[in-house]
Structure formats: structure tokens, C-alpha cells
């Protein structure tokens, strides 16, 4: 028999999916199957929840029952704690999907005499695993044994034995540990757990908390090495890696009106793309929120749902203010088409903002989402984080084909085109509002800085807030440069007067020519009549002369006749010639 050489097959490490949102993407499939993973972090960073979610989701989704060995919380406490996340532990325990084992060690009740081992713990874990045929085990803060039992040397050796034993059993284990000074864990457990170490971090920067997750090591597998923000909310644990969302969303060709007809015209006559990201940036008081409101009104009239995140104004104030420019948003709120979500940006950290936003969007299912303004999030120097958050939000919205409308306040004097949060790369259509200060006046100008995928106007429009909404007016571009406001108005009246003057001049000239023509024609008539008079006079003279000659001839003939001569005829002819 001929042996065929099989090509080397790339075998990836078998993995145990966590089904924790985002984590499986970073780890490339989950935690190492059948091996221990160390999850460490300081107090309150979500270690227990992480571990519990790993078990619960494993049991529910992958039919891998789990044993939770808790060294700190009792069974009833655990059940109560995770019930708020919607995990029905008692039900799972009854279905033999979950086993809670509370290992209680109380130092004051225990004294030591001679050598001991942890065989009791082994037996308990073994019994639990065998009872429900568990595939996953969690040891929640096994380090607390160190404070409960004497003789750390024995404990260390026993823990090492326990981890080897669990590995031999082939159960996927999570060991949680408190973060120690300088080291990952207080008791140096990372020495024993060498397959996968995940670090959870909960830090406060600028008075808002950020949770982060980092995979410190993952033996035998590639993994994301960044610090990824994660969240704990009523749905549990979720990691939000930027990379978990690829750039593979489909794009709509549908266009939606901006609510301002002349702005539509500027954007090749149709408005924004559906599902695109629109940014309106400008200095204070240039009418960013007004443009947003006009857009909202147009959307609500089409029957679309709009979710408005306002970070600076309360909904009531916003509705009142928009009434002043003739936009009444209240009916849409009452109809349920418009929903306001008003929170202070400082209320919670960026990640929580992101998830609450995403959650609200998922619940409300809007066609349009407004964030007013995005730079409210920028506190101190967290621009990179804000950008990362917005990037993830934009990705999410694009995936859902929701049109995002951001406003951004740029401080005066800054480079206007350098948006505060450096989000320009995320933006599809960017409208810039700016002050034009001429002649002791401040006027608003609007132009389209960029608009991907459509023809757009390169003109600055003057932007007016009237009590009938927003109006865009052509700015005056003439010999004196770009004029707006009353300067534009006065220039326009000046122009009008000039035009009138010119018209009058033309009329005057035409009148003059007419008069000249009339004079000329009168002259012609006069000349003609003069000529005619002279002509008739001349003819009369000619006639008289002719008649005289005739008469002379006749007289001569008569005379000749009377003289009876015939030679005289010639003489008469001669006389005539003379």
C-alpha cells in the first residue's frame, strides 16, 4: 500500500467559546479548551461576572454544564447577584446545567496541627463535575484560601496540583484573582496558570470610569493585544473591540431630504444619503441644532423615527427654542416618532454612553440618530477615546443603515476644518457653519466641506434663521468681495439704484434718437416741399419760355407769310438759335 503524504494541516488550538459579546472575536474563538485561564483585576472590575457569564452562556448555548466554585459569595448571594442580569441560576441548577459550590473558609474557626492537603476541595470539585458532567469550571478567587488557611507553602503546592488535576480532567477553567502590587495577582498565581491570562482593569480618568480588558497572554494562539473597552450593564458583559466590526456594510443609494430645500440643491438636489454620517460643525450660535431640527422635522413628516441624543439642552428647552424658528417638534414627540435622550456627558463613562446609546437604538429602531454635540464628550485629553467610541457607534449605525447626524462645536480661532474630535475620516457629509464678520456684523455662512459620493456645491451660502425656518441666501460676490447681512443688503440696493439709473439713461437715449428722427423727417418734408415749389416754378418758367419761342416762331412764320418770301424761314431758324 502506498502511503500518500498528507500536507501539514494548520491545527488551531481547540477553543471554548465564551459567547461574551466581542471577546470571542479578540481571542479568535474563545478561551483555551480544557485548560485554565486566569482572569485578574482589581476589586469591582467584573471578574466574577465574567466567569459567571462564561458558565451561563456555555451551559445555555453550547450545552456545556459548569461548576462555579465560589470562595467568597454564598450560593444564595450569587443567585441574587446575577438574577439582575436575567440569569436564572436556580432553574439551571435544577436542570443540572450549573452547580454552585460555596467553599467557606473562616480563619477564626480553623486551627492547624501538622500537615494537611486540599483533598477535601478536590473531592468537592470532582463530585460537582461528575454530578452534572461539567465541561467548565470557575474558581472564583481561589486566593482567598491564603487568608483562610495557614501555611502558604502547602497551599501553593496544593493549588499547583489542583490546576494540573483540572487540566488532566480536560475541563476549561477560569481562575479569578485579585490584582496585586506590581504583579498580576497577589499570590503569584500566574506562575501556575500559563495558558491564558486576561487582565481586567477599571480605571477612573477625569472623573469618569473606563473598563478595559487585555489579553496578556494566550499560549498557542494569536489574539488581539490591545486594551479593549468593555461594559457591564443589565445584559451582562460585553467587550467592544473596534476590530470586531469590519468595513463591510452595504451602502444605500437612497437620498433623504435635509429639510432645507436650498441645502438639498447644494447636495446635487437630493440631500444626504440614507445611512450616511453627517457632521455639522461650527462655532457657537451658528445654528447647528437648528439644522438638525429642520432635518428632524422633514424626517418626521416622512413618518420616520428619530432618536435625539442631546447632551447640552433639556428636551423641553430644545422644543421651546426650535419654536422660535418655526419648527414645532412637540407633535412628533407626542406621536412617538421623535424621542429625546438627554443626559450629561459626564454622567458616566464613554463605554457606558456607547452601550446605552446602542441599546436605545436597538429598542427604538430609529431611521435617524442625532448626537448634539459630539464634542461634549471631550473632557480633558480623551479625544482618542471619544474618537474610538464614535467610530464604533458610526460602524454600528452604518450596519443598521441608520443616518447619523452629529453636531460639533468648534471653538473660534481654531482651524475650522480640524474638527475637535478628529472624526473627519468617519464623516460622509460635512457641513461647515461659520461666522462671517463684516461691517460690524456677525452673519452665518454655510458651505459643504465634503460630501462623499455626490456632486455638491462649492458655494458659500448665507444662512438665515427666520421665523419660518432656515433660509439659505446667495451671498453677494462682487468687486468688493463676499458680502453678507446688511452689507449684502445695502450693496444690493446700491446695485438696484445703479440699475435703475442705467435703465433711465437708456430710455433717455432712445427718446433722443426718436426726437432726432422726427426732426430729420420734418426736415425731409420741408426740403421736399421747397424742392417741389422750386420745381414747379422752374417748370412754369420753362413753359413760358417755350410758349414765347413758339409764339416767336409762329410770329415769324406769319410774318414771312405776310412777306411771301420763303428764304426768311432760315433766317428765323437762325434767330431762334441766337
Amino acid at each position, binding site marked *: 500500500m502506498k502511503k500518500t503524504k498528507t500536507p501539514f494541516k494548520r491545527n488551531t488550538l481547540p477553543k471554548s467559546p465564551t459567547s461574551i459579546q466581542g471577546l470571542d472575536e479578540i481571542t479568535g474563538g474563545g478561551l483555551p479548551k480544557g485548560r485554565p485561564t486566569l482572569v485578574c483585576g482589581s476589586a469591582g472590575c467584573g471578574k466574577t461576572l465574567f466567569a459567571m457569564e462564561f458558565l451561563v452562556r456555555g451551559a445555555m448555548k453550547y450545552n456545556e454544564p459548569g461548576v462555579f466554585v465560589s470562595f467568597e459569595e454564598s450560593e444564595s448571594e450569587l443567585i441574587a447577584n446575577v438574577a439582575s442580569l436575567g440569569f436564572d441560576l436556580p432553574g439551571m441548577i435544577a436542570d443540572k446545567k450549573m452547580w454552585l459550590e460555596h467553599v467557606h473558609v473562616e480563619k477564626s474557626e480553623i486551627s492547624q496541627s501538622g*500537615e494537611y492537603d486540599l483533598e*477535601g476541595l478536590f473531592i468537592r470539585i470532582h463530585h460537582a463535575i461528575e454530578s452534572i458532567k461539567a465541561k467548565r469550571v470557575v474558581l472564583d478567587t481561589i486566593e482567598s484560601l491564603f487568608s483562610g488557611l495557614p501555611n502558604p507553602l502547602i497551599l501553593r503546592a496544593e493549588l499547583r496540583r489542583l490546576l494540573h488535576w483540572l487540566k488532566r480532567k480536560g475541563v476549561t477553567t477560569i481562575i479569578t484573582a485579585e490584582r496585586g502590587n506590581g504583579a498580576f495577582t497577589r499570590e503569584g498565581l500566574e506562575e501556575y496558570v500559563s495558558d491564558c491570562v486576561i487582565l481586567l482593569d477599571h480605571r477612573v480618568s477625569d472623573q469618569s470610569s473606563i473598563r478595559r480588558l487585555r489579553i496578556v497572554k494566550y499560549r498557542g494562539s494569536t489574539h488581539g493585544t490591545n486594551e479593549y473597552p468593555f461594559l457591564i450593564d443589565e445584559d451582562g458583559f460585553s467587550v467592544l473591540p473596534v476590530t470586531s466590526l469590519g468595513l463591510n456594510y452595504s451602502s444605500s443609494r437612497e437620498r433623504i431630504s435635509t429639510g432645507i430645500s436650498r441645502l438639498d440643491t447644494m447636495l446635487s438636489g437630493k440631500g444626504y444619503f440614507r445611512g450616511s454620517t453627517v457632521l455639522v460643525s461650527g462655532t457657537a450660535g451658528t445654528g447647528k441644532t437648528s439644522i438638525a431640527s429642520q432635518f428632524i422635522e422633514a424626517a418626521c413628516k416622512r413618518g420616520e423615527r428619530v432618536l435625539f441624543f442631546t447632551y447640552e439642552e433639556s428636551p423641553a428647552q430644545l422644543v421651546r427654542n426650535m419654536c422660535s424658528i418655526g419648527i414645532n417638534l412637540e407633535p412628533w414627540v407626542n406621536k412617538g416618532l421623535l424621542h429625546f435622550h438627554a443626559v450629561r456627558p459626564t454622567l458616566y463613562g464613554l463605554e457606558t454612553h456607547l452601550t446605552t446609546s446602542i441599546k436605545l437604538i436597538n429598542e427604538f429602531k430609529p431611521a435617524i440618530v442625532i448626537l448634539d454635540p459630539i464634542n461634549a464628550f471631550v473632557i480633558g485629553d480623551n479625544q482618542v477615546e471619544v474618537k474610538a467610541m464614535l467610530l464604533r457607534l458610526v460602524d454600528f449605525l452604518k450596519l443598521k443603515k441608520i443616518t447619523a447626524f452629529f453636531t460639533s462645536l468648534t471653538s473660534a480661532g481654531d482651524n475650522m476644518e480640524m474638527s475637535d474630535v478628529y472624526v473627519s475620516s468617519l464623516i460622509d457629509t460635512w457641513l461647515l457653519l461659520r461666522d462671517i464678520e463684516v461691517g460690524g456684523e456677525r452673519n452665518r455662512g454655510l458651505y459643504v466641506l465634503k460630501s462623499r459620493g455626490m456632486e455638491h456645491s462649492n458655494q458659500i451660502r448665507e444662512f438665515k434663521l427666520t421665523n419660518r425656518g432656515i433660509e439659505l441666501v446667495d451671498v453677494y460676490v462682487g468687486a468688493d468681495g463676499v458680502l453678507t447681512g446688511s452689507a449684502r443688503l445695502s450693496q444690493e440696493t446700491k446695485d438696484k439704484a445703479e440699475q435703475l439709473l442705467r435703465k433711465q439713461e437708456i430710455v433717455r437715449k432712445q427718446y433722443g434718437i426718436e426726437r432726432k428722427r422726427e426732426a430729420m423727417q420734418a426736415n425731409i418734408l420741408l426740403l421736399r416741399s421747397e424742392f417741389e415749389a422750386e420745381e414747379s416754378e422752374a417748370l412754369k418758367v420753362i413753359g413760358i419760355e417755350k410758349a414765347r419761342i413758339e409764339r416767336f416762331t409762329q410770329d415769324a412764320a406769319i410774318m414771312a407769310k405776310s412777306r411771301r418770301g420763303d428764304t426768311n424761314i432760315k433766317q428765323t431758324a437762325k434767330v431762334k438759335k441766337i
Partner: protein
Amino acid sequence: MKSKINKRHKFPVKGENSKWYLRLFVAGQTQKAIKAFNNLKFICEEKLSGQYRIEVIDLLKNPQLARDNQIVAIPTLIRNNPLPTKNIIGDLSDKECVLVGLDLTEHNSTLYM
């Protein structure tokens, strides 16, 4: 004083030896288990002759009992009676520690006799 303590720790007493009820948790007949049992027997004979009862529980046969009694370390000796419950872990080779752990030092031992 004596009667007060006795009253507080009123306990259903069954059989004459049950005044001292000690349970020794082991996992199989290991060296450590045998050593612990012998050490315990020796101390009890010396201090509590005739008033004690030792129950050896093999957790390999009854793993459920480990959970019920919160056993982590092996061997574990639990003094169930008299109260309060006392736990001593180890092979009981340190006699002084056992006596302190069981409140059997000279001062206290007379209290219960």
C-alpha cells in the same frame, strides 16, 4: 458559671459517650489519615477517657458530606459537641495545637468533666 455554660449548650444527649462528639474527615486510608486518627485517639484517651465519640468519615465514599460540612483541607477534625464548633486541620501531630484547638488545655478541660 459551669451550670450557665452547660445550660447554654444544652444538647440532646444520646448515649453516655456523646458528650464529646468528634468527627474526623479523611479521604481514603492515606498515611496522613491514619496518623491523624492515631494522634486523635491518643489525645482523647488521655484527656477525655470514656466521654468521647470519634466518627471517621471517608469523603471518597460520601463526597456530599464534604460540601455539607465545608471541608476543604484533609484531614479535618470537627468538634461538633460541645459547641461552639471547632475545626482543626492537619494530621494532628502537634499535640499542643490540638489541645488549644479543642479547648482541652488544663484551664478549660475541667470545665466539661
